[in-house]
């Protein structure tokens, strides 16, 4: 099978198997919980290693090298965060909120967001005003929709959502969508080129993290987030896994960019 079909097919296949496991839950909720976090950690480490390796396809001093180093550094922080979660559970300690897991995740997201901004600036993206406006409207629409849903709950249940939880949720949502907007502009500029292929996965990854982050925030505000317990938790868990897998796929695609691939794709 051709590479550009094999990678999405593999991702969709893995997500389908995970979703089926999520529904059936063989071994019970505890097995699903541990499987979920082990998968998160494995995929995050895979994304981190591949992104750092992908940075070496660029010569020192080239902005694209910094882009992949930042992405790799961010993914490393997320991978450590996911591994810490497993460590907490292995030693049987309850995880406070916010814990080192949350703090590392929050810190790790900064270089990931920065990498996409650096990419946008390095490309000197030149798009028409209309193209930029169209994307801005789409992303503002998504942000507005997410805010309406969130605010609807917050206003109807005053006092139930802690300010810190609200701020963390807003940070991930606005950060993810803001940077996904910039990354989409970069992708539009590279459209039709072989060099765009890794970035398709990276943009999808950021969007998946935005969806998963929103579902997770909403789940924690409403105290309904628990792996395997409901649809909202499934959206969050499948979304995070899709985000990690897409990031790893993007880095892998950068590493395997070949001219010969143009003929077969």
């Amino acid at each position, binding site marked *: 099978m051709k590479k550009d079909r094999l990678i999405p097919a593999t991702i969709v296949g893995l997500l389908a198997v995970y979703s089926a496991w999520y529904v059936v839950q063989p071994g019970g909720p505890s097995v699903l919980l541990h499987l979920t976090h082990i998968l998160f950690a494995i995929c995050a480490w895979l994304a981190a290693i591949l992104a750092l390796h992908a940075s070496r396809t660029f010569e020192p001093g080239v902005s694209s090298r910094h882009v992949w180093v930042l992405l790799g550094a961010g993914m490393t922080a997320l991978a450590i965060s996911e591994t810490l979660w497993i460590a907490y559970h292995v030693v049987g300690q309850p995880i406070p909120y916010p814990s080192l897991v949350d703090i590392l995740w929050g810190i790790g997201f900064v270089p990931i967001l920065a990498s996409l901004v650096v990419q946008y600036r390095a490309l000197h993206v030149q798009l028409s005003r209309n193209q930029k406006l169209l994307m801005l409207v789409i992303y503002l629409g998504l942000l507005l929709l997410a805010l309406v849903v969130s605010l609807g709950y917050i206003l109807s249940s005053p006092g139930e959502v802690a300010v810190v939880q609200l701020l963390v949720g807003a940070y991930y949502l606005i950060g993810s969508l803001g940077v996904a907007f910039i990354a989409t502009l970069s992708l539009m500029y590279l459209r039709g080129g*072989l060099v765009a292929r890794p970035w398709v996965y990276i943009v999808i990854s950021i969007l998946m993290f935005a969806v998963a982050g929103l579902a997770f925030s909403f789940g924690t505000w409403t105290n309904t987030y628990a792996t395997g317990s409901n649809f909202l938790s499934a959206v969050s868990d499948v979304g995070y896994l899709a985000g990690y897998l897409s990031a790893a796929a993007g880095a892998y695609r950068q590493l395997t*960019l070949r001219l010969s691939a143009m003929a077969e794709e």
Partner: protein
Amino acid sequence: MQSAFQEEPLDAAGANQVLCADLSLLFTLYVTRLLEAIARTGGKPLADQFAQQLNLHARQHGWCVLTGLNDLNELRRRIPDVDARVLSSVYLAYAQYAQKLARQILGEPLLKATLTAMLENLPPDLAHINSQYRIVTLN
């Protein structure tokens, strides 16, 4: 009279050599700019593959026979001593192939931006040569 007869062919040969040098410089600059853009956005291995592919195309299309050079890289050390009109049509054909390949790698918007920047920064003498022989175009 004898010296005039001797000078005329010398001048024509000299002019031909200068034109070959300018055309070669223009073509080399063009390929270098495309290589830089590919290395910046797709990485060094991809840029190396682009160079290899272009060299392969040149070898398959009479480069060695016509110029006596082994590959396009030799242009950095030697200028082909051939009929400049023939050389210009060879460069034009290779440049079109390079552009087609670069379009597949970079995509239309980035390729256009790269070529626009190159054309804007061409030295006046090379810009004049390019306007005559249309080696680098935005199409």
